[in-house]
């Protein structure tokens, strides 16, 4: 089967590299391949590009260039903030987060708890999948080191009011980090207006390459390094910079600057079309996403076991044979067959949680993809 016959609707897991992005990257792989720490011409070209990208991203999210640090991706960024702010252990010992965060947050919290006695306090989601800022406020106290709440949930697409959470944190002078891996490039992110002290983001979710991400940290926040060695990233992250990927990241953000509004419009059009298509059999599933609270590029539904005989493995197999790529849980937890923690937190029993499909739309999807997808999904479910 040709790749253009395929219907890729798993853009929340990863996106294809935009052709313009790849074009921008390629010279940095083979021709202008210098190490930015080198003092000669090859090094300088790489260094200039590196700093230009930092400036661009800073401008895009409205912070200072020196507040942007490149990492290998969202997971490393999240680890950097949570560990960096907690270690070495001090008098304060508590981090407020939510039970629906990405595993990068939850697993890091487990590690900090087990090894350094850092106490995580988890806010549970509302029925609609969002985190109530008031509940975060209720948990803030003298022992709170920091707060970390994701901007958009990767499985449901539900947005959180991080501006409100940031206000609460600011009122108590507590640093606030937000995992914006799913919202970066899908919503306008202005760190000054939102009032967040730190955000984590990744390039491969915005049509950039894998292996590159960044963390924004407000210049007034001190934190321990995650990776030691070398004076790169102003002594905050050792290791030769991934220059071709950073060149790709630059292009990906440049495209967002001029096209994000169009992207969002495109997602909304496809989203409306998809919802209309799913409406034909809406009695069979629970909508985990929300029309008003979710980003338009993610739709998650869980089928009622009482209404349809749903075997996820068979379903995904059938869909794949027809060229359809959708996801059951988030990509990172889908390696294991455990029901998604997000679905469980939404109150689904294991069977319902396992009967979940996440459809995530991308820049390169077409209305025809949606028409075909709805038809093929119905076929796979035995509804045709």
């Amino acid at each position, binding site marked *: 089967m040709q*790749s253009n016959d*395929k219907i890729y609707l*798993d853009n929340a*897991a*990863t996106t*294809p*590299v935009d*052709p313009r992005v*790849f074009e921008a990257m*390629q010279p940095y792989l*083979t021709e202008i*391949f*210098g*190490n930015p*720490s*080198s003092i*000669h*011409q*090859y*090094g300088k070209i790489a260094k200039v590009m590196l700093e230009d990208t930092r400036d661009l991203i800073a401008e895009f999210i409205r912070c200072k260039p020196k507040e942007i640090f490149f*990492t*290998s*991706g*969202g*997971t490393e960024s999240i*680890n950097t903030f949570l560990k960096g702010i907690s270690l070495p252990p001090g008098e304060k010992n508590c981090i407020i987060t939510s039970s629906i965060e*990405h*595993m*990068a947050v939850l*697993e*890091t919290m487990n*590690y900090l708890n087990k*090894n350094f006695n850092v106490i995580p306090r988890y806010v549970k989601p509302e029925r609609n999948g969002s985190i109530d800022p008031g509940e975060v406020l209720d948990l803030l106290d003298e022992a709170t080191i920091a707060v970390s709440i994701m901007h958009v949930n990767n499985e449901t697409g539900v947005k959180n009011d991080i501006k409100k959470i940031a206000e609460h944190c600011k009122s108590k002078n507590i640093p606030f980090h937000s995992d914006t891996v799913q919202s970066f490039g899908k919503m306008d992110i202005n760190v000054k207006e939102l009032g967040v002290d730190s955000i984590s983001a*990744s390039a491969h979710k915005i049509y950039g*390459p*894998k*292996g*590159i991400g960044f963390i924004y940290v407000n210049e007034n926040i001190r934190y321990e390094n995650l*990776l*030691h*060695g*070398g*004076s790169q990233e102003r002594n905050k992250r*050792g*290791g*030769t*910079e*991934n220059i*071709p*990927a950073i060149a790709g990241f630059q292009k990906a953000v440049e495209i967002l600057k001029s096209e994000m509004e169009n992207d969002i419009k495109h997602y909304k059009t496809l989203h409306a079309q998809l919802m209309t298509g799913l409406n034909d059999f809406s009695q069979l599933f629970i909508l985990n996403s929300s029309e008003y609270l979710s980003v338009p590029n993610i739709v998650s539904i869980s089928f009622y076991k009482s209404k349809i005989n749903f075997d996820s493995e068979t379903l*995904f197999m059938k869909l*794949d044979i027809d060229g359809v*790529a*959708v996801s*059951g849980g988030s*990509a*990172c*937890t*889908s*390696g294991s067959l455990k029901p998604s923690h997000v679905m469980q937190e939404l109150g689904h029993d294991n069977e319902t949680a396992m009967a979940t499909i996440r459809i995530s739309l991308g820049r390169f999807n077409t209305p025809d993809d949606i028409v075909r997808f709805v038809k093929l999904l119905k076929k796979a479910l035995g509804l045709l």
Partner: protein
Amino acid sequence: MLNFPLYFDYNATTPVDERVLEEMLPYFRIKFGNSSSMTHRFGWEAEYAVREGRARVASLIGASPEEIIFTAGATESVNLAIKGVAESNFNKGNHIITSRIEHSAVLDTVNYLSNRGFKITLLNVDRFGRIDIDELARSITPVTILVSIMAANNEIGTIENIREIADICKSRNVLFHSDATQAMGKVKLNVKQSGIDLMSFSAHKLYGPKGTGGLYLNKDRPGLELTKQIHGGGHESDLRSGTLNVPGIVGFGKACELCQNELETEAERLKSYRDSVINAIKNIEDSFINGDPVNRLPGNLSVGFDCVDSQLLISGMNEICFSTGSACSSGDMEISHVLKGIGLTKEQAMSTIRLGFGRFTTQAEVNYLIEKLVSTVQNIRSESPKWELRNSESKPN
């Protein structure tokens, strides 16, 4: 035909080989899936590609595929190896041994650990950059948990006797980690024959892409436990989380395969380039070569010229790219800890340059380098009062 500027800094980084790029290409736009996606073929294809990459990397160093953990680069691998062992073995002991001339990835990491209650021994090296095996043996105590010695030095090219170090570590029941970033793919290195327990390496030093590296973990070594350093989705046997850099891993695999096939002929060629430069330099009076005269990387040459500041060489030969210290510390003008470690004076260190030869270096480029280097040294000296004074002192009337 020469293509300026000429690149003689292959120890800092290397271009991606066209054959490597070609193999990577489909994974950006066509087979672009997340290797953790288990519900469709985009994910399966990516996962398969990672598996193949892992096998190729493992093959180059004589390891099994399941002994390779992919990371974002050698610095991360070193951090994972050293902090991972330190955290897992804190109840057994808190002593780590390394050397003064390690890469800053190792030195900064052990320095961090020393602020966390670990005791660090920095072994001295001789003037060739070799550690003293007896000193190593004497330094191991019952609370020593790890020895970390690089396979080959990034500045002076000296290859350590890894086998001997590994034997001592094994006999004293201490884990042995080696930073092989410079050695892998350049000289023959078999982790099983060498007896290495953990080994760090990177793709961009061997014509693979930046942003991908790896850590070898000897699965047969009892007591080798590692605390992960990046937590999340449980990738890489739950030792390193984060979406895998699939194109990077594919490229790394191909790069390793090419090294495995071409290592010997390439090493011979680079040695001949290097030796022709050495021979030319021998004709320049008061020049010196750093590092081990015999056991050294084929593509590395660290040389200095009395009364010739390396900064002047850089401006005098700006059509040639080379380095004056290791790439990671050359942003600032501090004297390299490696050159200090082998006992160079400040002046000698300031006049040392590093020339790196690699896969795309040509004989014509080397000829140009030699001619230019010899004439530039002469020009600088002819305008140097220091040189004049020294010569008049050493040759009294």
